[in-house]
């Protein structure tokens, strides 16, 4: 077992009286790739959003790189600086050029000079295969290109962990693979990743650990061979048969 990057211990969360997360226990080792799937409303996005404090959990512990996530602003900032996030809706800043989207964080949050930040931004744009779009605005790019810019934006902060919240769900089918290719490259380079997705081909290729959630619980988890080969729970079997049908 490699060093632990993320650890969730008995995490619970309620929206009012609605119990969204029920006793979530999850360990992600450094360099590991965890793929979370499950029906909508199962709490899978919420788990990811709790890891960088976009949502607050009410009970249990979340540790990132050994630091516990509490209400203390310093701990939240510390963890956010190590955790990058890629959203379903990209959430690029539409009023800024691609380059400015990438350099805003490094310049304002990290105090880098403009020149350093731009160098870094161009380096990561190269890695997501769109070095020539730096001066454009997000609205001028295709969905797939926008999501790759969003990935590059996260990488510019050089995080230890990258979270993906359904990164391909808002994309047209022909653009999904260009985003997944970038994610596979990242996985192969050893990035620690937690990915919420229904792309099971991607999951088989990169996942070290598969997680199936339903109704706020982790129903099943295990290495992909086991998970896809012989799912134990009925709910997971049913879910997999539904999404793998096509």
């Amino acid at each position, binding site marked *: 077992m490699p060093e632990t990057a993320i650890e969730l211990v008995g995490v619970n969360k309620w929206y009012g009286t609605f119990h969204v997360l029920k006793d979530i226990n999850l360990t992600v080792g450094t360099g590991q790739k965890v793929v979370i799937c499950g029906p909508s409303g199962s709490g899978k996005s919420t788990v990811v959003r709790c890891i960088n404090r976009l949502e607050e959990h009410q009970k249990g512990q979340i540790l990132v790189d050994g630091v516990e996530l509490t209400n203390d602003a310093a701990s939240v900032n510390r963890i956010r600086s190590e955790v990058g*996030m890629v959203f379903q*809706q990209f*959430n690029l*800043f*539409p*009023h800024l050029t691609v380059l400015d989207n990438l350099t*805003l*964080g490094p310049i304002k*949050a990290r105090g880098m000079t403009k020149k350093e930040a731009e160098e870094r931004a161009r380096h990561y744009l190269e890695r997501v295969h769109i070095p020539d779009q730096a001066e454009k605005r997000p609205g001028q790019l295709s969905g797939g290109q926008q999501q790759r810019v969003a990935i590059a934006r996260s990488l*510019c902060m050089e995080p230890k962990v990258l979270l993906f919240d359904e990164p391909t769900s808002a994309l047209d089918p022909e653009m999904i693979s260009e985003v997944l290719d970038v994610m596979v490259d990242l996985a192969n380079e050893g990035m620690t990743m937690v990915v919420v997705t229904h792309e099971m081909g991607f999951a088989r290729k990169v996942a070290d650990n598969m997680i199936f959630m339903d109704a706020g619980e982790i129903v099943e988890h295990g290495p992909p061979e086991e998970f896809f080969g012989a799912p134990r729970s009925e709910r997971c079997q049913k879910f997999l048969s539904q999404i793998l049908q096509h």
Partner: protein
Amino acid sequence: MKKILTFTLPLLILSGCSSSSIWGWYVIDPRTNTGWINIKFLISGMGDTILISVIAATISIILGLLVAMPGLSNRWPIRMINRVYVEFVRSIPLLPMLFWVFYGLPIIFQSMGLNVPIDPFWGAIITLAISDSAFTAEIYRAGIQSIPKGQSEAAQTIGLTYSQSMRYVILPQAIRRILPPLANQFIYIVKMSAFASVIGMQELTRRANELVVTEYRPLEIYTLLILEYLVLVLIISAGVRWLERRMGADER
């Protein structure tokens, strides 16, 4: 100026004369000596109307943002500061507020041992700015809240603090949506500045009133007064449309 009026006023005069003889445009006929002096007298209020409006709007734009900020808080006691201010201020009619500021406020200052005279100029500005700030605050709040939540979430995940995300991510986007209603408010301020005439500020309306008293020609003088406001507002509208085009051009 004299040329434009020489062309347009006779048209008005003609249209008036054709229907009946109730119009007496001679009072502001730029071709006659008295008429021209009267016109210059009326227009001499323009400077103060513009100055009062611009200063009041500037204060209101800053004050409104400061009032809007607590309205965006997650904590309700802080949000209440915003609610109380907005509900209280916008419920006060402008004229009573003007009286209170001009006649009442100096008494409060005096009782505190402060000698702060409030002249009509600043009395009008304070009143207009405070009264308007409740509305600009609501415009800011609506504009900021209209920016998708994902934007501030993305800003957080790249390590920006709350004020950095406001400054670099949210406000630059919100300003495009805020600008048109804010321009409306400016037009509103220009028109409401007419109330300053009541406390003796010699702006457009006051000048018109003064001339009516000496010339007994309310119909013609107030008609010209209305046209003066019309011209002002049209100029502002054109300016705002230019600004909107310029800001919109680099959005996509």
